[in-house]
């Protein structure tokens, strides 16, 4: 049944792509509406690529990339970005590591210089390595060990769902592995993965394309050419029987649960993957969504529920294998089995009875708003385009996403729901150990 739907608007950010002789791929997306720029450098290496015995290394290495480089002392990177009025950060994902700045546009050349300098070579010293191992340990304490629900579910669900080291291990890393990391390990990691041919540079915002192109050639052109390493196949077979795991969180006052199902390959089967992205929102986006209405309001079996694609909530920045996740927090004494059973029931109902009038269109309208809002920030645009270039060679897909999301049909969403069977599900339950 066709329903009247809000017209899904699109952005028309222009996209210029080219590659330097050393293999560095570049994406430029000019927009002169505010005097700011976003600069992102994305390397095609993440948690899945770190070697056995080196859990947490990709993230530790991200820290080392800020510790000085060929022409820059320790601390200089921070000072030069912030001293130009900008902000910076980096983050480590399953399939990539990014480094980025947002700056007033008069700092474009400076930002390019800083990124090129560390692409040529970070200063990997014993002192900086030991210092950043300490800092990372504090990061893990603050985000995982000293707080309730630390690492739930992104660190605790993958080992239930997956069997191979790349997909199942703790991406933050064990203290033992972190402490035994050496400068030689870091140098090797850099040589292997931080090649110009394994990176994408994206610049967005208040730039002139010709001028930016010339500056990029000036600063990155003589970064020594190194080819991208071959990316291993991280594929694992789908689950055929349900997997459950339980652990006690000594600090958590209330129970929680997360479940996940494998989904089609986000890159090679994008058309098959998109309905799952929409399904997650149909299930959990706001008070009018299926699972909020059922679990939170009607049954009162959970106090909050969320659903998303990718263990780090990155539906368009992740490769296969990945999953649709649902996570819920329960009231005191809550019954996790009952919650999972109800989820199965609601998925069945969706697969069998379909959506109600207007349900899909309104969900798609809101998804479009979220996508547009994320790209309103110049940095959001640069980062997304860099990863889309890296994983798909298609940065302009960012402009098309609201429309493509809007084109997903009810039949596709129903079919996606029908695949989320209990026997394909992995779940992890947090037992409250901190009840008062």
């Amino acid at each position, binding site marked *: 049944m066709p329903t009247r739907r*809000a017209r899904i*608007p699109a*952005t028309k950010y222009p996209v210029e792509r080219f590659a330097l002789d050393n293999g560095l791929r570049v994406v430029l997306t000019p927009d002169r*509406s*505010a*005097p*700011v720029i976003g600069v992102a450098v994305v390397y095609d290496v993440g948690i899945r690529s770190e070697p056995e015995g080196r859990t947490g290394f990709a993230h530790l290495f991200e820290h080392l990339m800020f510790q000085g480089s060929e*022409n820059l002392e*320790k*601390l200089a990177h*921070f000072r030069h970005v*912030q*001293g*130009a*009025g*900008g902000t910076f950060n980096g983050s480590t994902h399953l399939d990539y590591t990014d480094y980025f700045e947002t*700056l*007033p*546009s*008069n*700092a*474009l050349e400076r930002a390019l*210089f800083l990124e090129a300098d560390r692409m040529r*070579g970070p200063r990997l010293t014993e002192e900086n390595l*030991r210092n*950043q191992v*300490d*800092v*990372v340990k*504090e990061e893990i*304490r*603050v985000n995982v*060990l*000293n*707080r*309730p629900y630390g690492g739930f579910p992104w660190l605790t669900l993958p080992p239930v769902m997956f069997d191979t080291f790349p997909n199942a291990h703790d991406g933050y890393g064990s203290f033992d592995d972190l402490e035994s990391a050496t400068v030689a390990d870091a140098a090797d990691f850099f040589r292997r993965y931080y090649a110009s041919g394994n990176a994408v540079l994206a610049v967005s915002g208040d730039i002139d394309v010709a001028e930016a192109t010339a500056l990029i050639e000036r600063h990155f052109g003589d970064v020594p050419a190194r080819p991208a390493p071959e990316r291993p196949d991280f594929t694992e077979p789908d689950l055929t029987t349900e997997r459950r795991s339980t652990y006690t969180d000594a600090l*958590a*006052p*209330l129970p929680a649960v997360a479940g996940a199902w494998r989904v089609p390959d986000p890159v090679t089967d994008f058309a098959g993957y998109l309905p799952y992205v929409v399904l997650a929102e149909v299930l959990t*986006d706001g*008070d*009018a969504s299926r699972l909020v209405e059922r679990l939170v*309001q009607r049954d*009162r079996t959970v106090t909050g529920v969320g659903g998303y694609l990718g263990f780090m909530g990155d539906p368009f920045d992740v490769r296969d294998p990945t999953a649709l996740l649902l996570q819920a*927090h329960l*009231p005191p004494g809550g019954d996790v089995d009952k919650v999972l059973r109800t989820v199965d029931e609601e998925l069945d109902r969706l697969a069998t009875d379909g959506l109600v009038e*207007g349900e899909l269109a*309104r*969900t798609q*309208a*809101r998804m*479009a*708003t979220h996508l*547009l*809002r994320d*790209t*309103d*920030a110049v940095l959001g645009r640069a980062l997304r385009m860099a990863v889309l270039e890296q994983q798909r060679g298609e940065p302009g897909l960012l402009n098309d996403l609201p429309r493509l999301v809007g084109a997903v049909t009810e039949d596709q969403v129903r079919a996606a729901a029908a695949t989320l069977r209990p026997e394909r599900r992995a779940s992890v339950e947090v037992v409250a150990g*901190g009840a*008062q």
Partner: protein
Amino acid sequence: MTATTVRPLPALGPNRRLTVPKQAERTLGNGLTVIAVRRPAVPLVEVRLWMPFGRTHLARGAMLAQTMLAGTEAHSATEIAAELQKVGGGLSAGLDPDRLMLSGASLVTGLDRMLELLAEVLTGASYPGDWVATERDRLVDHIQVAQSQPSHLARTALLKRIYGRHPYAVQTPEPDQVRAVRPAALRKLHAERVHPAGAVLVLVGDVRPERALDAAEAALAGWRGDGHVAELPPAPPLEPGPLLLIDRPGSVQSSLRLALPAVPRTHPDHAALQLANLIFGGYFSSRWVENIREDKGYTYGPHSLVEHSVAGSVLVAGAEVATEVTAPALLETSYELGRLATVPPKPDELEQARQYALGTLQLGMSTQAGLASLTSAYAGNGLRLDFLTEHAARLAAATVDDVAEVAARYLAPAHAVTVVLGDAARIADSLAALTPVHREDA
């Protein structure tokens, strides 16, 4: 060092002048101020409604925010959410000791519909019993989870220590107080306090400002009621004393919090104090971060910030540090505060902080959401966006002497109120070697 050539750092291009975007303002007959700002980057519009809400019963206020969107005569909560979704929109309510805030965004084509729904909630929120009961339980659970977070516990202890008997002292209700809230109390509170007088609605996005004002007037002119004014007393001055140590047995980190005096945005010292704060610990390239993170590896993310509230401002510095280095981290913190309060900063340090402050003003204005939040925060304190231009001029003009002077006045460690949450059995003795300690349980 493997470099064969030393490459010079490129100079910055000329600074772009701060330009404040086009805006319009109107005060409606009912006392509501509406400010509309044009930023057409994406086809969306951001909405912020700031309502003065000081001195509200804590649990009832929190429950009001939790259930304000839970239904009206015409629509259930689910229907309100669905209607907003249809235009790509959503609304949420939040409370702090100064204000009740409704925030949201939608496709710009949905502005009229979102304003209609906003008006419906403001004039007709019904607080249905079953919803209130569900949300009451949820809020209790959320509070319980918050109370297991070290950052929340440390903040709670700090506020109590700073504000004493002032309404700012306690900002989270106890579960029992929440359990006692009934729908009738929420309807009464809504009738008494959710009024247009003194409220400010901000609309930012792909709109023509005058047209957005007309839309707001059409939707909200019927929102009536006299504002019950509850003036907050000025926040009390900080009273330094012994370090307050809150015991959290088994903690693998300690939460360090320091409060120092600060001034409102309009005070002549504000710009210089903002710069002094940056130099101390307000950004990554600060002395404190370089010392306790990048040199000593004691912590992941130390940060200091001037917090502005209607009844007063305060500078809060916070860091989560490894248990075994709690006292050394405090020592370094006092050292950096004392050094800045007694020795003028280097000119290049000040320039770096100044550029950061000016640059982040530009960045903050470069998205619809950032601009909406900034406009709303300013308006809540009686300011308009043109204040940005004045503030930028003051930041540009502050001298080393100005910054040294405010650092001595506000940042001296002798003025600090200090709270540490952690495993007292492991940290009390070494903290006591630095300063008198008063100990309490979490």
